[in-house]
C-alpha cells in the first residue's frame, strides 16, 4: 500500500505541476532510514496555487534528496496553469545545528488564458542557510527561476488584435525572477509543518511581478 501511495504521489507530482522552491525540509529531523518524503502545500506563488511533492532520500554521506513536485493555479479551469519540477537538493555543509543547502530543478510549466497558451522549460536554483533542531527549524532562502525557452500559441482573439503575431518557440530567455525570504517549521513524529514567505523581484532588481510576494504553507510526511 505504501509503495502505491509513494508511486501515485511521485507520478502525480512529476506529470501534473510545484511551487517556486524545493520541498521544505527539516534536515535535523530527517533520519537515515526515512527514504520517502511526501508533501502537500498551498499558498501564493504568482497566483494562489496548490502543490504536491515527492522526495527520495538517497543513502549518501552528504544528505541528498531527489524530488519532483507539481502545483496548479486556483481557478475554474484547473490544468491550464501549472508547474512541474524535477531535481534535487543537497545538504552541502553542516556546522553544529547550522545547515547550508543547495537545490537545483528543471521546470516545465504551462499558462493559458483566452488569448494565448504558453509552455515553458526553465530552471531554478536556490540556497538555504538555517538553524535546525529536531523539533523546529528556521532558515533564510534565496533563489533564481529562469524561463529559458517558451512556446507561444495564440488564440483567434489575439490574432484579431495582431494577425501577424508569431507562434512557436521563443528564445533565449523570456524572463527570470529572484526570490528571497525565510522558511521555518515544526516537526513531530514523522511529520513537518512548514511555512515559507518572501519577496519576488524580476532579474533587473528594479521591477517586480504584480504581486511581488510568495507564501507557502506545507505539510510533509516521511516514510521508511
Amino acid at each position, binding site marked *: 500500500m505504501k509503495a502505491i501511495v509513494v508511486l501515485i504521489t511521485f507520478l502525480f507530482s512529476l506529470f501534473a505541476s510545484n511551487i517556486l522552491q524545493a520541498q521544505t525540509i527539516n534536515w535535523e529531523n530527517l533520519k537515515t532510514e526515512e527514504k520517502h518524503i511526501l508533501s502537500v502545500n498551498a499558498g*501564493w506563488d*504568482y*497566483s*494562489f496555487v496548490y502543490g504536491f511533492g515527492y522526495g527520495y532520500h538517497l543513502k549518501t554521506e552528504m544528505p541528498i534528496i531527489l524530488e519532483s513536485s507539481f502545483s496548479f*493555479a*486556483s*481557478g*475554474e*479551469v484547473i490544468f491550464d*496553469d501549472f*508547474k512541474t519540477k524535477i531535481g534535487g537538493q543537497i545538504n552541502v555543509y553542516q556546522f553544529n545545528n547550522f545547515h547550508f543547502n543547495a537545490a537545483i530543478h528543471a521546470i516545465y*510549466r504551462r*499558462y493559458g*488564458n*483566452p*488569448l*494565448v497558451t*504558453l509552455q*515553458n522549460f526553465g530552471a531554478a536554483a536556490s540556497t538555504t542557510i538555517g538553524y535546525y533542531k529536531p523539533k523546529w527549524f528556521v532558515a533564510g532562502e534565496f533563489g533564481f*527561476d529562469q*524561463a529559458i*525557452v*517558451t512556446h*507561444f500559441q495564440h488564440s483567434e*482573439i*489575439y490574432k*484579431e*488584435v*495582431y494577425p*501577424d*503575431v*508569431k*507562434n*512557436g*518557440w*521563443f*528564445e*533565449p530567455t*523570456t*524572463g*527570470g*525572477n529572484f526570490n528571497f525570504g525565510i522558511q521555518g517549521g515544526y516537526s513531530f513524529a514523522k511529520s513537518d509543518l512548514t511555512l515559507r514567505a518572501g519577496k*519576488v523581484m*524580476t*532579474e*533587473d532588481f*528594479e*521591477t517586480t*511581478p*504584480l*504581486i511581488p510576494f510568495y507564501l507557502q504553507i506545507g505539510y510533509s510526511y516521511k516514510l521508511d
Partner: protein
Amino acid sequence: MKNKMLYSAVVVLSIFFLSCENDNEIDGVGKLVPKTVDQDASLPSIFVNGTQLHAQTFGNPNNPMLIFLHGGPGSDYRNGLNVQQLANEGYYVIFYDQRGSGLSKRHDKNTYSIQLVLDDLTEVIKYYRTSADQKVFLFGHSWGAMLGTAYVNKYPDKINGLILAEPGGLNKKLLDDYGEMSRKINIFSEVTSNLLYVDQFITGKENQHEILDYKYGISSSFSYAKNNKEGIPGPSPFWRIGTTVLESFTDIAENDGFDFTTNLNQYQTKVLFLYGELNQSYGLSFAQKEAAYFPNSEISEVKGTGHEMIYFKWENVHPLVLNYLNNLK
C-alpha cells in the same frame, strides 16, 4: 549504462531544441505586438511636440473638429472607430493614439507628465485646424474622458463642447472610488490566475516596450471576465497597449495625486456625460458626482451596454452624441 543514458538525454534534448521552428526573440520588433509608427512608415502618423503619433482623420477638414480621446492610459483608438460615422454627418473626425499609446512612438517611463499630454493635444488641434473660427469638440472615453476634462480644466476657452463617456475619476479620490468598485478580485478565481500567473513566464525590464506591451495585452481578458462589474461582454479590438505610459501615469497618480476639477467652474458650455446601463461600477450616482463639477451638464444613460459602449452599442451612443454636437454646431 549511465553514460549511454546521459548521451541519449543529450541527443534527445539537442534534437528537441534544434528542431524548434520559428525561433524568435521575445523583444524582437513585430514578433508579438504590431510595430509602432516609428518602426513602420506605412502607418498614418503626424509629428508633433517632439513625438510621432499614430493618427487618422475622416471627413471634410473644414467642418467642426471632433477629436476622439481613447481610454487607458496606454490603450488606442481602435475600439472607438465607430465614431468615424460622424464624419458623414458634418464633422471632421480626428483619431490619434496618445503619446506612448497604441501605435504611437514609445518613450521612456520618466518622460511622461500630464502637462505633456495636454501639450500634445494642443499641438494635435493646431496641426489639423484649418481656420481660427473652426469649432473644436472633444469626445473622451474612460481615461480619454479624464484627459478631456483635464484639458478644459486647464484651457476652458479652447474647447467648444465636451462629451465624457464614463471618465474613471476626475480626481484621485474619484479614481480610487471607481477602482474599488470595478476591480474587486477573488484570489482563487481563474481571472486572477490569468492575470498574475504569467509573471513567471515573461518578465520585462523598464522600457522594454515590446515585452511589456505584449504582456499587458494578453492580460486584457481580465477586463471582460465573466460577471465583471463594468458590464463588458467580451473582447473589444485594440492594436497595442502602451504599458510604460500606463505605469508612468499610475505612478504619478499614486505619488503626486491629481485633480482635474479645480477650474471646471470656468467652463460654461454644456457637457454631455454618458454612462452605460450595465456598468455596475459607474451608474447615475457616479455620473452625478462627476457632473457636479461642471456648471452646465447633461447626463444620459446608454441602454444595453457597459463601459465599452462605443464599441458594443454605438447605435445607442450615436444619437445622443449627434444631438449634442448639432446643438453646439
